[in-house]
């Protein structure tokens, strides 16, 4: 309990929240970097994944992208960016690295979701005279939505957790609270930093679930 109590005390101390290295600033950086990366990744991966799924082609690509993404260490990618001219471009290295890691789960889930749509439903829609675009928008997309949203949620949680690695190459975010606590052997601060990252991940997941309920189609009572 000692460490958790210490973490609570650290979080309760207002002095830790203000300033350049304070929680508010780091939280802002973390949320900004993760949010931007997720948006860009969605803009890139969802159209490609949905389109490939609609066409029923490129399945190997969609799956292999996901496997390849797992093999590349985030830390190495960030390190490569930091020794390239990108290092002086502010948040660009972190955001780019995070986009690269958010694309695979989004792409794979979008593709798998589209392919998982019952073929007989698609055939029926075509038989009713729907065009390819109509089938895509009115049949496949609504049916694939749960899996696409699952991919989005796991990508979001992953991005929030991974953004802490940026601290290892001196970039901002909540990871800096952890590394600062690490170098000063301040375990309560490390725990506090980890708790903040976990809370942010949970909050993002909650927001996405709520948005899904609000924006999703109205479920008719059976």
């Amino acid at each position, binding site marked *: 309990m000692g460490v958790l109590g210490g973490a609570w005390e650290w979080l309760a101390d207002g002095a830790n929240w203000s300033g350049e290295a304070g929680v508010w600033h780091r939280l802002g950086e973390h949320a900004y970097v993760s949010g931007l990366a997720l948006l860009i990744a969605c803009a890139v991966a969802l159209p490609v994944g949905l389109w490939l799924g609609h066409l029923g082609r490129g399945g190997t690509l969609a799956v292999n992208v996901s*496997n390849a993404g*797992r093999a590349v*260490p985030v830390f190495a990618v960030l*390190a490569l960016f930091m020794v390239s001219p990108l290092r002086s471009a502010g948040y660009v290295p972190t955001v780019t690295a995070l986009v690269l890691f958010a694309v695979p789960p989004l792409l794979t889930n979008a593709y798998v979701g589209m392919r998982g749509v019952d073929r007989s439903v698609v055939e029926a829609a075509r038989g009713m005279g729907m065009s390819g675009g109509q089938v895509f928008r009115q049949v496949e997309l609504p049916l694939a939505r749960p899996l696409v949203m699952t991919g989005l949620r796991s990508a979001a949680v992953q991005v929030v957790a991974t953004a802490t*690695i940026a601290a*290892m190459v001196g970039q901002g975010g909540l*990871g800096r609270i952890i590394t600062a606590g690490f170098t000063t052997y301040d375990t309560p601060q490390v725990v506090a930093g980890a708790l903040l990252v976990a809370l942010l991940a949970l909050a993002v997941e909650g927001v996405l679930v709520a948005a899904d309920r609000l924006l999703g189609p109205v479920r008719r009572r059976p």
Partner: protein
Amino acid sequence: MAARNCLVANDWVCWEYVRSRSQELTDATVQHVWITVLSVLIGLAVALPLALLARRGPRWAAPVLGLTTLLYTVPSLAMFSLLLPLFGLSASLVVTGLVLYSLTILVRNVLAGLEGVPEDVREAARGLGYGPARLLWQVELPLALPALLAGVRIATVSTVALTTVGSIVGKGGLGNLIAPAVSSSFKAQVLTASVLCVLLALVADLLLLGLQRLLTPWTRAAAAKGA
């Protein structure tokens, strides 16, 4: 002296670096490999009983799967930092963290494999007089092997990548070469270590794929017949 030294020019690709530091690179790769292998093996040894526990019913499955999934959301940096008071600056710290991460994938896949064993196969084995232990080792585990090995492949590839973060405590295999090279902007070292790391993951994946084919020849035969 060579007219143009790529070490002085700080080029991305530099064979002179690979040649002059081959010992350092080999040591880092060897450390990377044994940390990964040890983590996945221990992870598998821990995941098996956990999966067997989770199989007993939803009352066990929910906490086991919930806990192992929760572990995966802990950021790797925080995980290694949190284990520091327990292990100090040692390789066992990194291995423990990696084992905890591998559990998420391994427990799920072992469980999926065991649950995929057809009930009539189990019944037949029981009818032949197989006890629970013999049923597990000679019938269920071999049939669960494809799912289990698929899990081992995923876990190994992600463990190879995650090991680099261990450089925060100085035991990150190739990550140990990346971390100092970032602060000194040593391009060749960052690129060489990163490429080696990805190659390591690819080689591990291919080796495990080979093992999978060797151990489960019936899956390929079935696929060929189905096609």
